[in-house]
Structures are given as C-alpha cells and as structure tokens.
C-alpha cells in the first residue's frame, strides 16, 4: 500500500510541473526577514525578485507609453508609513521582435527597496505588510497578460526611547 502511494505521489509530482510550468512566465519574491524598527525611525527593506529564465519584464520606466511598467503597490496599516520606493535601473536590451528598438527591462534578479517608518503613535508589536508587484512579462516572441505578485513581509515595531523634551513632568530628571 505504501509503495503504491509513493509511486502515485512521484507520478503526480512529475505531472504537475509539466502541465503548469512549461510556458507560464513567473516572477517570484524571496522571503523577507523580519524587519525590526523603532517607532519614529525608518528602516530600509529590500524586496528581492527573480524573473524566470527566458522572460523579461518592463522596468519601472519603460521607453514607451504603451508598455506596462513594473510597479510596487503596498497597502500598509495606518500609522506605518512606507516611503522612498526605489526601483533599480532597467537594462536596455534588444529582442528579435524589435532589434532596432531596445527595451528597458528587468531580467534575472532585481531588488526594489522601500523605507518603513512607523509613527510614534503605533503600538509596539508585529505587523503584517501586504502589497503587490504588478508586472507584464514577455519572451523573445510573445507577451503575457499583466500579473500581480503578492508581496508580504512582517515588521516588528519597538517602543524605543521617549522623544526628548516632551512631557517633562513624567521625566525622572524633572524631580532632581
């Protein structure tokens, strides 16, 4: 019985990627380590993406108005500001379908960075940040409809020191 189950499992594992992964372009994101940041301060976060071999996606600043730029859209909890989203420079690459018109693209690995800045009012603790990366992929001869890749990471917010000069009545120095 166990051997039959094992054979079935192996067969299904072989069948699955062949049926789904053959032509579908994919962009994946590496897991993000827990981001620890003190209230009122900013911490940079790097989001590392990988475009599957054989495919490319437009950069954040493609050369034509008709091309769909790669763009990160985050939905942060209230009082946690996400700022300074920075995209890497794309590579100018020529493709067989447009040898004289290089496109500005991402291929292979690329990183988008942003700053996480919790406001002073945020309760310390762990927060989940969600968003999505919108991209549109092509290969050398065809293009694929735009897709949205879920982007998730966690932020641990520390209380940190109280802002100096505020509420002096509660400061231990006030009683000296």
């Amino acid at each position: 019985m166990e051997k039959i189950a094992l054979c079935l499992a192996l067969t299904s594992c072989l069948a699955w990627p062949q049926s789904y992964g053959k032509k579908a372009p994919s962009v994946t994101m590496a897991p993000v380590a827990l981001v620890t940041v003190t209230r009122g301060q900013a911490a940079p976060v790097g989001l590392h993406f990988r475009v599957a071999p054989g495919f490319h996606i437009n950069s954040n600043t493609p050369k034509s108005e008709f091309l769909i730029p790669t763009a990160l859209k985050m939905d942060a909890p209230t009082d946690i500001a996400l700022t300074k989203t920075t995209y890497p420079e794309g590579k100018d690459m020529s493709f067989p379908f447009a040898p004289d018109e290089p496109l500005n693209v991402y291929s292979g690995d690329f990183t988008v960075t942003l700053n996480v800045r919790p406001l002073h009012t945020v309760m310390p603790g762990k927060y989940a940040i969600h968003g999505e990366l919108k991209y549109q992929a092509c290969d050398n001869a065809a293009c694929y409809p735009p897709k949205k890749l879920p982007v998730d990471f966690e932020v641990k917010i520390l209380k940190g020191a109280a802002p100096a000069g505020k509420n002096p009545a509660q400061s231990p120095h006030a009683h000296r």
Partner: protein
Amino acid sequence: MDKSHNPESDNPSPVENETAEIAALSPVEETAAAQPAQAPQTPDPVPPPPARRNPAALFFVAAVVAVMLFLGFHAARRAGAGGPPDSLDPAGKPAPDFTLASLDGKNVTLSDYRGQAVLLNFWATWCGPCKIEMPWFIELQKEYGPQGLQIVGVAMDDASKEEIQKFIQEMGVNYTILLGKEAVGQQYGGVDVLPTTFFIDRDGKIVSREFGLQSRSLFVDNIKKSLSQGHAVQAQK
C-alpha cells in the same frame, strides 16, 4: 533567508526518531537474510515492534495523491504540448462566433464575414511582438483584401478606447479593430499568449492557429489556405 539556530533541533523530532529506528533495524534484517546458515541466535529480549500503519493517514495520503493526479493530468490535457492552456489543435473546428464593438462604436459579429477568409489576431498595445506584425497585416490586407481576406484585430487591452485609437493611428492600421472582452478570449482557449492568430476559412472553420510572433511567410501561407477553403459568397458586410 537567514534562519536562526533552533535549539530544539538538537533533539530529534518524533518523526526523526522513527526514521532512525527504521534505519537501525534494516541492516539487522539484511544481515539475517544474508547469513541464514549461522548458528541460531538467542532470542532478542525486546523484539522489534511490528510496523504500525495508521489506516486513516494512509487513506488521507492516497486521497491527496488522487486529487493531485486528477488536477495534474487534467491540466496537462488542457496544456497540450508546450502551449498555453487549451492548446488542443482547433483546426477544422468552427470558429466561435462573437459580437464586439469596433473602435468607431459599431457592433461587429464574426459570422458576418462568412464567405470571406478571416485572419483573427488577438493583440494588445503593450505587446512588442504584436507591434511587429501590424505593418505586415496592413500590407496583407491591401494585397489579399480584394480576394476576400478580412483581417480583424481584437485588442485584449486594459487601455482605454482612446489610447487604443491613438496606437492604431500611429501604426496606420487599415483593418478592423475590435475592443476585446475576456469572454471572447475564453471562447478561443484563453488567449494567454499574445499575439495569438487564428486563420478562418470562408465557411467559418479554423484553418490554423499560431502563438507568438511568426514569420511573414507563414502568415501568407495560412492566408492562401484560408482563401482556398470554403465557399466564396458575397459577404454580408
């Protein structure tokens, strides 16, 4: 990414213990089988426990595998050999009929072109390879239009009608452009790859389908084939 050291990993989990137990038992069984002539050994004071299998767990595993197999083979059947979903050869089948709005606001029905050969091209403004084909289609419409060819471009685009119009004007398109809908794409197998082009004969049957950018000569061959098949009648439109 970075994984911190897990202090519990020094103590094997129950699963690891079971694996270790099986591994430790196996050599003993092999040795016993390989040396049957040896003197009888004293009975083991603690005989190994019989292997216990949880029927419920086995049933669960079998059920999961069965579901994966079903989904995997179903998807494989739809995917065919390397193409997008539903890439089963549609040649010889009737082209699914549809009605879509053109850029000038008129409703156009595919079957209105019965009696003409139709090159049905799914494209988008963001599709680079599609842009390469357009000048060819412009020339082919001029060359083969008088023989009964109608090229129909279906824009599978999120862009506004105005943006598509601007794109079409820049490209100097002289053939019919329709504003696509997902439902029509589904009728034609999902159209997950652009460009996707169908060649339809005068009777409304699909002659050929091509994924991605193809050579101009292949288009010409397919157009000739489409024009030669079916009954040439006066088009209604």
